[in-house]
């Protein structure tokens, strides 16, 4: 209800809120497609979803500075949108690196686990935004995001240890593999940042 109290729910604001939800739903789709694409050939779809995300991001920023919401809220809403865009970029980077990559058997299970956790985190971010729009408490959601992030960190530690033992045939194969693992395991950090920023926006509404 806080959002409803502070802003008059005009057409512009509603459009931004709808697009914020759409943006994160697209991120959920990208993460889910990525998760399914490890072991299949769906990665190109992830790249297409990132482009759709770009379009929604531009629309949100344009609408916000076209007068939606009170001026003090605008930079935070835009910052939040840009953080989501950074997550999209990382998912896309991971997808790009993956396309011609042969992942060693010893790494594949951990990669799938991280992809699944990234997917869950993006869903939790969507749940958080929906709760904020309804004026709900974000404390439990923020904690859940932090728990997921810690789980990814634990796997990352093992993954990096294993990575050092994997034999690569060329510099570029090694670089692609390193870039892939780096992007895949950084997604959760940025989703956590997005969750924290949502908390900041929520607090600033009080």
């Amino acid at each position, binding site marked *: 209800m806080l959002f409803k109290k502070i802003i008059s729910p005009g057409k512009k604001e509603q459009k931004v809120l709808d697009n914020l939800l759409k943006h994160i739903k697209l991120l959920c789709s990208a993460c889910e497609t990525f998760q399914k694409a490890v072991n299949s050939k769906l990665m190109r779809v992830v790249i297409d979803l990132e482009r759709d995300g770009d379009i929604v991001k531009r629309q949100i920023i344009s609408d916000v500075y076209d007068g939606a919401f009170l001026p003090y809220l605008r930079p935070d809403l835009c910052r939040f949108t840009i953080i989501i865009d950074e997550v999209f970029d990382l998912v896309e980077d991971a997808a790009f690196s993956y396309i011609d990559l042969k992942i060693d058997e010893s790494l594949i299970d951990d990669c799938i686990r991280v992809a699944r956790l990234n997917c869950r985190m993006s869903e*939790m971010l969507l749940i958080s935004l929906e709760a904020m729009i309804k004026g709900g408490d974000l404390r439990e959601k923020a904690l859940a995001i932090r728990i997921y992030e810690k789980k990814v960190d634990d796997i990352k530690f093992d993954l990096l240890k294993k990575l050092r033992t994997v034999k690569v045939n060329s510099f570029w194969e090694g670089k692609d593999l390193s870039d892939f693992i780096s992007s895949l395991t950084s997604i959760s950090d940025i989703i956590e940042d997005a969750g924290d920023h949502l908390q900041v926006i929520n607090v600033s509404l009080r």
Partner: protein
Amino acid sequence: MNIEESMTANVECIDTDSSVYDAIERMVDKRIRSLIIGPPDINSGVITARDVVFKVLARGISPKDTKASEIASKPVVCIDKNAGLIEAATKMEESNVARIFVSDGKKLVGVLSMIDVMESSLILRARGTHAV
């Protein structure tokens, strides 16, 4: 959310003829509290930090001269990977253990600790699905 999603997927094992000292070294190195003795199988034994401290160190026994298998508990307390969190928590309470191994058929595929159960219950609360 089932156990498979909440557990830690690495099951650490040591050889059946390893000493307690080898086990301590591995636990400290990997920052874990339990090790399977032998293959990751439901019929194998398990050695925990509790076993090491109470059965060896506190009694002044040399960890280098004691085989890990001598102080291991057998068989391991385990639960199927498709079971629910409540079932796992109940089994932990009944068996008085802080972590339970997760099995897929006869193979051990992960470990579920009390912290994992608590974390999963918080996640379920945040999702609006209270299971624990």
